């Protein structure tokens, strides 16, 4: 095994409501949806189906006019019940009423021994039309990869350090063969290496520890050590002009399944987590599932917020909303619409803080205390006051304060030279959490990335 990369900076947000490692019995939701808004790169989506059409799992639903080869496919078979548009006819959701038995489009199937014979172009074509391609994300910018590019390397982080994140060792149990096939396919797409980020702090299950044809890298540290962006920074940082791809472990497995089984298999193990869930546990479902079945009778009576994804990078959805394409968890936390008397002054051990300013005593609790945190902003937005705290939670040789300022000033040269290519939203989310002045840093970073991308 390779050497360990130790990361001292960072902060673990230990929330209440960890999913118990067992698969719950639950009916499948009736509807599933694909949301173009989940894919940052999509600018001009074109819908390929109409309401009332029947589709199979793997039938293309839409593509982006800028990138016509990449098809976004239906996760399940059934009937298109709604194509939901918002203001200015912006495409929001394509909803599918699922069949009881999922029927899949049939693609070419390969035996394990034939995988090595597949050529790059054949692999790419199959991935594009079957719906697995959007699993591949390009850095810089964090957008769906362009199939004509040739990345310098491919990176896979096998663990997620976000609050209440799923344990990939559990969700991918029994998928070893698919995972390995996925890696073999990815190896065909790059001239460089396929890098695997492993967590030294936890037991690494067979699926990751015995993966072949990869370059393993062990990481040891608090969140965001599991972020693939942080790992890239320490393995082979992205400079101007570089292009690398990242895939999450679920995506790798899905790619492997496509080649071995000949179908787009969107089945997915997700976790229902958060302090307001009565029985947080794992569920077997499909990508884009409606969350209503999982939360039924399983959430406290408080006013709660449903989040697709985790509390740092996720998105608020309704109680009948749909899980995002890249998300593997639902988090349910209390809404914080109370106005607290002298909330800024009274000492507290219950409120989690990275800071130790007067009265913020959560550091005395030790790291095993689990917190119930609501959505209150806990203060008002203020002008930037530099406290050096961003740098303390960013385990990279990057100065987030200066980068953010460069973005606000729209200084292209500084954005580049301060490392904007190495970051996407998830890499700055922790800064946003600890920010004293309560700025929306992820939004600002995306605006900067858009400026650079379109320049």
């Amino acid at each position, binding site marked *: 095994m390779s050497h360990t990369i130790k990361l001292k900076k960072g902060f673990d947000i230990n929330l209440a409501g960890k999913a118990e490692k067992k698969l719950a019995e639950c009916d499948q939701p009736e509807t599933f949806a694909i949301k173009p808004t989940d894919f940052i790169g999509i600018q001009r989506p074109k819908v390929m189906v109409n309401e009332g059409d029947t589709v199979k799992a793997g039938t293309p639903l839409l593509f982006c006019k800028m990138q016509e080869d990449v098809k976004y496919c239906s996760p399940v078979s059934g009937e298109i019940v709604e194509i939901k548009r918002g203001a200015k006819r912006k495409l929001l959701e394509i909803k599918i009423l699922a069949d009881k038995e999922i029927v899949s489009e049939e693609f070419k199937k390969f035996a394990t021994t034939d995988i090595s014979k597949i050529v790059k172009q054949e692999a790419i074509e199959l991935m594009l039309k079957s719906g697995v391609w959007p699993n591949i994300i390009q850095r810089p910018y964090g957008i769906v990869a362009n199939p004509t590019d040739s990345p310098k390397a491919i990176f896979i982080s096998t663990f997620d350090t976000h609050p209440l994140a799923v344990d990939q060792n559990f969700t991918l149990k029994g998928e070893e063969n698919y995972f390995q096939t996925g890696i073999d396919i990815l190896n065909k797409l790059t001239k460089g290496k396929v890098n695997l980020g492993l967590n030294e702090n936890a037991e690494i299950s067979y699926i990751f520890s015995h993966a072949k044809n990869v370059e393993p890298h062990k990481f040891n540290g608090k969140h965001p050590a599991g972020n693939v962006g942080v790992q890239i920074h320490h393995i082979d940082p992205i400079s101007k002009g570089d292009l690398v791809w990242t895939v999450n472990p679920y995506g790798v497995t899905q790619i492997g399944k496509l080649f071995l089984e000949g179908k787009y298999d969107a089945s997915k193990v997700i976790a229902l987590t958060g302090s307001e869930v009565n029985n947080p546990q794992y569920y077997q479902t499909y990508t884009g599932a409606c969350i209503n079945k999982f939360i039924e009778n399983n959430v406290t009576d408080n006013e709660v917020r449903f989040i697709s994804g985790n509390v740092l990078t996720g998105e608020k959805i309704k109680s009948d909303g749909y899980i995002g394409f890249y998300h593997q968890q639902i988090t349910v936390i209390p809404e914080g619409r109370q106005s607290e008397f002298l909330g800024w002054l009274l000492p507290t051990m219950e409120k989690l803080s990275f800071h130790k300013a007067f009265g913020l005593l959560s550091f005395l609790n030790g790291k095993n205390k689990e917190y119930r945190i609501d959505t209150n902003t806990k203060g*008002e937005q*203020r002008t930037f*006051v530099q406290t050096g705290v961003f740098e303390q939670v960013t385990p990279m040789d990057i100065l987030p304060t200066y980068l953010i300022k460069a973005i606000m000033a729209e200084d292209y040269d500084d954005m580049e*030279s301060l490392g904007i290519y190495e970051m996407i939203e998830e890499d700055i989310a922790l800064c946003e959490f600890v920010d004293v002045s309560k700025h929306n840093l992820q939004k600002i970073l995306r605006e900067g990335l858009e400026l650079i991308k379109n320049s």
Partner: protein
Amino acid sequence: MKIIKNIFEKYKPLFEQGGKFEKLMPLFETFETLFFVPNRVTPSQGVQIRDAVDLKRLMMTVIIAMVPSLLFGIWNVGHQHSLATGETLSFMQQAWIGIVVVLPIIIVSYASGLTVEFIFGIKKGHSLNEGFLVSGMLIPMVVPPTIPLWQVALATVFAVLIGKEVFGGTGMNILNVALSARAFLYFAYPSQISGDVWTYLGDKTPIDGFTGGTSLAIANEASVNSGAVVDALANSNTVLGADFYSFSNLFLGFIPGSIGETSTLMILIGAAILIITGVGSWKIIVSVFGGAYLTGLLFNAIAANEYMMMPAEYHLVIGGLAFGAVFMATDPVTATQTEKGKWIYGILIGVLTVIIRVFNPAYPEGIMLAILLMNVFAPLIDFYIVKGNKERRIQRATV
């Protein structure tokens, strides 16, 4: 609690859009958020939860760190008064004199500064920035107790207006606000902020042999007259007690001086609070002290004049060095912002302070000018540190 909530709810419509006092909403909001943390929630994208910290709490921490120095300063005003006038006063009487003298200065400082802040807040439509809560307390602590109140008001208005608001408000200023106020007084009204102004006498006459100068002035004078500084300190104001300017007295703060700056001990307690809570940079505090001490040692070695021969540790306890190092130099807005830069910034403040003290008899107090000077240079220091970071990235790209 419920009652206060109801009062705010009752009058809120007056300040909301279309209300009678619509324009004063920032003012209303400031008071409301002082009592209640607003019920705002995070937007649907971006982080869904936020850290419990906010700017109010951060600033409150600094104010709490200043409390030991302030309380000691208030008592010391009465204590110096009783020494100088020869009256025997009880602890409570001394404290009372201090309160009568210092409280009006604090009130004037806050009132004048907040007025300017509110006018700008209303003009720009945002609620009050908490930064002034600290500046408004710092200003009274760096002036002599005999300061005329109108000068406090004028200096505060000047500092907030010219030192801060013209640059865009809190977070944008280049110079430390409280030091801008003091520098303004120093250059505009030198006779009220230098000489025998450090002891509050009231309408009483001082006892024979009393001189009202600070330790810095004595050291300066000794140097000019070619006498050993330590001897001069030992022989000064002996009417107030033998060894009035002994090292321990200087350290503990039983000496005349600006209201909050005399007691190095109390300031160190404040420093401990700032460092433990992580609000003040320990790097800056340590490096200012370190820079001053090492420069003192170097001067001891050169020993060209009497002031240079003063034991280096005296530099740390006389004048306002400790106060400046802990409460002024650490101001996150005007200090350097990179971690390496903080070392350079702090050390240079310490070095400059001692150089100004020793070589420039016109300005006995070096720390004020040293910090203001380094405030101006802080962006330059950061520029080079950030450039280093950029260059590492550029070099990597060419390989």
